[in-house]
């Protein structure tokens, strides 16, 4: 009984604003409405980010630039995030990005001959509210669109593990800050809408030729993922790790898989001020 009372007291203290009112100088920027401050840079194995102004941040996914040895071409990509915060309690932001995949890379990934290139557009809107000194909620809506550029006469057609061109998804990140730098969090993502996939193909052999006019859609309309995790946002180092289960949202593309898998959410970077 005494142990229970103690645990409740600690929990109440941790959640209480009176016991913990420090500002968080370097709040998490992914899945939230926060941006990096002006002149603040972040370098990690997954992405490079920099705050141009307090309200404007740019970034790029580093691994995609390094894909030449694998798929033959680099994959240029960039994103811009613009946000506005009111103190440390409320923030809103919008983010837009693109990724371009040259036809050579598409042909490799799709295992088909094609001269079409691919462009992926990603847009998100985020809002973050600090509902208590230690607890904040970030609600976001993502839109992702993939489309071809160029000659589409010969096209890739496999849709195993299918995703679609237009995807709307929503997410909620709940953070419980145990200290200004350390937080426990839960990320919940759900699919709102996914457009059907065009799965046309032609095939031919000695006996028969087939022209298929097909579309595919996920057999599961409700697709959810839940990823509890930890995050650390220090003066120079930033680290996030979450392990959960559900559909996997492909990095950059943002498209969900049709099946559920174990999900690992990992981030790691070194941050410093340039100006």
């Amino acid at each position: 009984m005494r142990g229970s009372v103690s645990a409740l007291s600690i929990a109440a203290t941790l959640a209480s604003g009176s016991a913990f009112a420090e500002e968080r100088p370097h709040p998490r920027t992914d899945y939230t409405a926060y941006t990096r401050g002006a002149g603040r840079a972040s370098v990690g194995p997954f992405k490079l980010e920099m705050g141009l102004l307090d309200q404007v941040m740019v970034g790029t996914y580093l691994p995609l630039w390094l894909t030449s040895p694998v798929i033959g071409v680099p994959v240029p990509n960039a994103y811009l995030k613009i946000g506005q915060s009111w103190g440390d309690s409320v923030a809103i932001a919008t983010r837009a990005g693109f990724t371009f995949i040259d036809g050579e890379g598409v042909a490799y990934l799709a295992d088909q001959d094609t001269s079409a290139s691919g462009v992926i557009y990603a847009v998100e809107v985020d809002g973050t509210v600090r509902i208590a000194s230690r607890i904040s909620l970030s609600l976001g809506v993502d839109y992702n669109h993939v489309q071809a550029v160029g000659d589409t006469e010969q096209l890739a057609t496999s849709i195993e593990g299918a995703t679609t061109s237009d995807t709307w998804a929503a997410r909620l990140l709940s953070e419980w800050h145990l200290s200004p730098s350390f937080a426990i969090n839960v990320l919940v993502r759900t699919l709102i809408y996914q457009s059907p996939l065009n799965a046309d193909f032609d095939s031919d052999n000695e006996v028969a030729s087939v022209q298929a006019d097909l579309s595919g859609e996920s057999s599961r309309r409700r697709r959810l993922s839940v990823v509890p995790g930890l995050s650390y946002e220090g003066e120079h180092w930033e680290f996030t790790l979450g392990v959960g289960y559900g559909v996997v949202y492909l990095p950059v593309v943002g498209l969900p898989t049709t099946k559920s898998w174990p999900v690992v959410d990992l981030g790691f970077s070194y941050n410093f001020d340039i100006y």
Partner: protein
Amino acid sequence: MSAPKSGPRLSPEGRSPAWTAALACGLLACAGEAAVPEVDGLDELSIEYDAPSAELDETSARELVDASPELESILSGLRSTGDVVDEIDEATEPAQARSNEGVRLRGKLVITLRCPGNIEEPSYDEAENGSVTLTLGVLRNAVRRGVVGEANACKLSGTVAGRQVPVEIDGPVLLDLGEDFPLSEGWSGERLLVSLPGRVTVGDFSFEGVTARITPDGVEHLLRLGDGSTVVVSVNSDSVSVRDRERTWTCSRTGGPCEVP
């Protein structure tokens, strides 16, 4: 960056099918749901095969067989049609490869089957031996049983009285595959209802508007009599079976009264 590290399995080539899917989707300029052709099965014809309406006796059954010397030719031609249609299963394999439990496919498959000509020396040259084009509907990963198509001077060969004879099919083709079948399982081929409103030529005989029900047990043909009633006939090596409203008559091909076994 928060990068999910686990995810879809790799394809045999070592490439992520999810990546492939995402890119393929974009390159295919995703354009909404594909339309599924509305083709009904041949329900009314199937009922007629199940329940012929004529009522025969041993004399009228004999007269019917004697008056229809072309029956074996008709059935041979229709059996050959079934042999061509059997290729549907192989032709749908590419679509089978695209379906899985996580994806529901819909739309249509337009299959052009090239006809072999002489089956003993097949030549799948469309210009020489013609073709049959079939349109199959696909809904929820299943091929719908109703199929429409067109035969374009499709040349085959059939067997009449133990010898090969040329068969040619021309004109519309309507098929009932028996039941909708999952793409992942393929067509069993156990039951096929064929309606050929066009022309079928078997050797020296030519027919229009013939139908057949083809099963592993044999080929049945619905014969419409002068009074509008129907019987179902099938031909064996030494006899002709005639199924009327209540009985099945077995008539020797060499003559004599028909009998009910």
